[in-house]
């Protein structure tokens, strides 16, 4: 008969830090941390020494100096007498503009192409395959400069619109002019405008918020809320009585009537671009650089999104469709209630990373001269002031902040559409 005894208590020895698995992980972590801190300290001290040798201490005072360069495509008012900080802010908004425009068009195009690629129509499916392979396998920078070249070389100059028998004409009922200097689209004008609110006074971050836009958004939000309330009530009635009241006209009306009244009250009209002298005046001028970047990023990202959408739809087994049909659901309800919720679960995570890629790729704007944050802060400001360290680090921080925000928002959305398991 044996008796169990406690194992002999080991004295702690220094070698146990390496050989005892209980302590080894702590040892490794401490070594890693020390190594990392040493590396960081080494880099920082090198940087400080180098900057001291160059006579450039790290400081951000240059942001207050006048930028003295122009930004031709912008959302905010800006002159070359404004500060570098203002220029960076204008550039940041430009980045966001092209990112948002690109994400929206890329999604729409990508979904259409992804669905068409699954089409039973042989020639359409092949064409879409060609599109996807063509855009995925050629660098996006090449597409950007290529589309820029197409815009500059093939579109008519503004003078082609002049004369009795012009070579070129405006499209969409004389409202949009497509020229080799950019696209002129009608602008929204309000004759009884509510005016603007000026935020942040006269600082570099000042911007104006149009009260007309605010009013429009408030009414739109109210209309969406009312429409949902009508739907909710219809659901309620249907559950009680089994009959669903016809509500589509109510749901259209809550949008059309208040918005129509608001726009009429504000005196909404369009300001059309007109040819005056050698160029177009009026309307909103979207320059070629913006258009080229927008088109190229959308087309390029659409090819990736198309593949994601295709994979998402193909990931749903045919049994799901058949089971839903066996339950007696109609085609569109099968799509809405069975296929899409499951496909979205597959589609959204890679979609997020494509939005992030598009936003990061928008930094290639510098190749066509669109003044986004890379073109202002990382381009002209950096070259003029010679403050490489400050500019590049800030530029990285800005992009990091944008990326983290997008992924936070999209991950939140992903959580909300995810299939709830258990």
């Amino acid at each position, binding site marked *: 008969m044996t008796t169990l005894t406690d194992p002999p208590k080991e004295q702690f020895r220094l070698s146990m830090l390496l050989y005892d698995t209980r302590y080894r*992980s702590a040892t490794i972590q401490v070594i890693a941390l020390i190594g990392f801190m040493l590396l960081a300290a080494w880099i920082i001290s090198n940087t400080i020494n180098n900057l001291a040798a160059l006579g450039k201490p790290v400081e951000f005072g240059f942001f207050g100096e006048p930028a003295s360069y122009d930004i031709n495509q912008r959302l905010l008012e800006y002159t070359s007498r404004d500060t570098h900080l203002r220029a960076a802010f204008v550039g940041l908004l430009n980045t966001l503009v092209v990112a948002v425009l690109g994400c929206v068009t890329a999604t729409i195009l990508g979904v259409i192409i992804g669905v068409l690629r699954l089409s*039973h*129509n042989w020639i359409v499916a092949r064409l879409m395959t060609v599109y996807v392979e063509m855009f995925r396998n050629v660098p996006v920078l090449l597409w950007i400069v*290529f589309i820029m070249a197409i815009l500059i070389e093939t579109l008519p100059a503004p003078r082609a619109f002049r004369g009795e028998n012009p070579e070129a004409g405006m499209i969409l009922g004389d409202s949009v002019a497509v020229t080799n200097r950019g696209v002129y689209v009608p602008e929204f004008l309000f004759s009884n405008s509510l005016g603007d609110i000026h935020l942040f006074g006269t600082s570099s971050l000042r911007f104006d918020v149009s009260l007309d836009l605010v009013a429009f958004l408030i009414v739109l939000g109210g209309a969406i809320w009312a429409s949902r309330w009508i739907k909710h009530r219809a659901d309620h009635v249907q559950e009680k009585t089994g009959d669903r009241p016809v509500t589509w006209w109510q749901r259209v009306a809550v949008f059309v009537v208040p918005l129509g009244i608001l726009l009429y009250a504000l005196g909404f009209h369009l300001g059309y671009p007109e040819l005056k002298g050698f160029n177009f005046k009026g309307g909103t001028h979207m320059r070629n650089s913006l258009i080229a970047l927008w088109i190229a990023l959308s087309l390029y990202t659409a090819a990736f999104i198309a593949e994601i959408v295709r994979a998402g739809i193909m990931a749903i087994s045919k049994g799901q469709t058949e089971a839903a049909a066996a339950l007696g659901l109609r085609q569109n309800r099968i799509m809405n209630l069975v296929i899409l919720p499951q496909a979205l679960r597959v589609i959204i995570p890679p979609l997020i990373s494509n939005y992030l890629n598009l936003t990061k790729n928008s930094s290639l704007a510098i190749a066509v001269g669109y003044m986004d944050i890379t073109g202002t802060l990382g381009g002209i400001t950096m070259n003029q002031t010679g403050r490489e360290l400050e500019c590049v680090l800030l530029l990285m921080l800005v*992009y990091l902040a944008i990326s983290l925000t997008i992924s936070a928002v999209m991950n939140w959305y992903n959580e909300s559409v995810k299939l709830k398991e258990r």
Partner: protein
Amino acid sequence: MTDIGFVRTEMLPEQEPPASEVGAIGWMRHNLFSNWFNSALTLLAIYFVFKVLAGLVPWILSPTWNAGSLSECREILHALGREGHYAGACWGVINERWIQLIFGFYPSELYWRPIAAFILLGVALAPVLFSDKVPSKLFAFTALYPFIFPWLLWGGTIWGPLSALLGFVLGWFVYTAVSKAISNLFGIILGVLAALIWWLALSGYFVGAMDSIAAIGIEVVESRKFGGFMLSITIGVVAIACSLPLGIVLALGRQSDLMIVKYLCVGFIEFIRGVPLITLLFVASTLLNLFLPPGTNFDIILRVLIMVTLFSAAYMAEVIRGGLAALPRGQYEGADSLGLNYWQAQRLIIMPQALKISIPGIVSTFIGVFKDTVLVSIIGLLDPLGLSNAIRADANWNGIVWEIYGFIALLFFVFCFSMSRYSMYLERKLQTGHR
């Protein structure tokens, strides 16, 4: 018994299916004209294809291959009666400059070196890419190749790469000797130390001494002469080769239980993935020298290589982490229950499966990195896009647009498309019927 009226005793001959259901007509009915919407789409698509081809084919088929300038091209086209701005392509520019687009300003008498380097690259990659068709002894060459590649491209004395190689050999000997005598762990530490001492302290003297004894070497080519596709491929290959091991380490770090290591890896990966490559290239061109001891000034291509490698390693890490996460928990537990330690489990059980799952992701990262090498034109390196601007600035070719872009796009397409096809082949080959 009642009589059975009629029982057929032989089979009827098979009837032909209706003519509208088989053959070309049947195929077209099913695939092109199944309903009115499909028919409309088909007609639209055919019209579109026809328009594109009608515009593109005559443009491409322009007999301007031997023209010496854009105006000569226009004369040739004019003589054919083709007028207008888009009458035809001017292929003379490709004929004159394709060598430059591929080799940059690399000295023309030394073209054999990059060519040899890339052919040997194929040989070195063969045992990795087609492991079932090529004798595995070639792996020895693959291991040597990282030392041959830079020597062939940049040139210089042969003792440099040899001494780098000697460092590895020395480290290996120290490791085997010490690990037998004392322990495995000390073997690794001392081996790495020996190699580092060799590289940092001794190898300079060794190279100098050997060079004075026997100056074997080939002509040095400076980095600023690199350009064109050679530069793209060089950056792509080096970044890809270095980022895979680095990515594996980062992915393991991110998955590990060691909290500090994990957060260091997460921080690195998320930082790199959160910023565009162009900002990292700005770091390479302006800041990297600031981060190093005063007086260090090394080559711009090397700096770009470092940043592109770090960039792709972060993406690679995420792809491999996906593969690791996709492995069932039972695989890790099975490895533990066999008594394997961490590295044995990784090497024998986890990594082979995780890497297999992540092949498509790895290849698409490769393709992405290769495409992203075009960005170096923004910081002034002469990759194909950078060269295209130089060519268009030439008085002879001022005004050329489409031909050069088309040529560059075509070459990129060929590389990237074949890489994606290879990944499909590999997926099929490694498909063992379960996941």
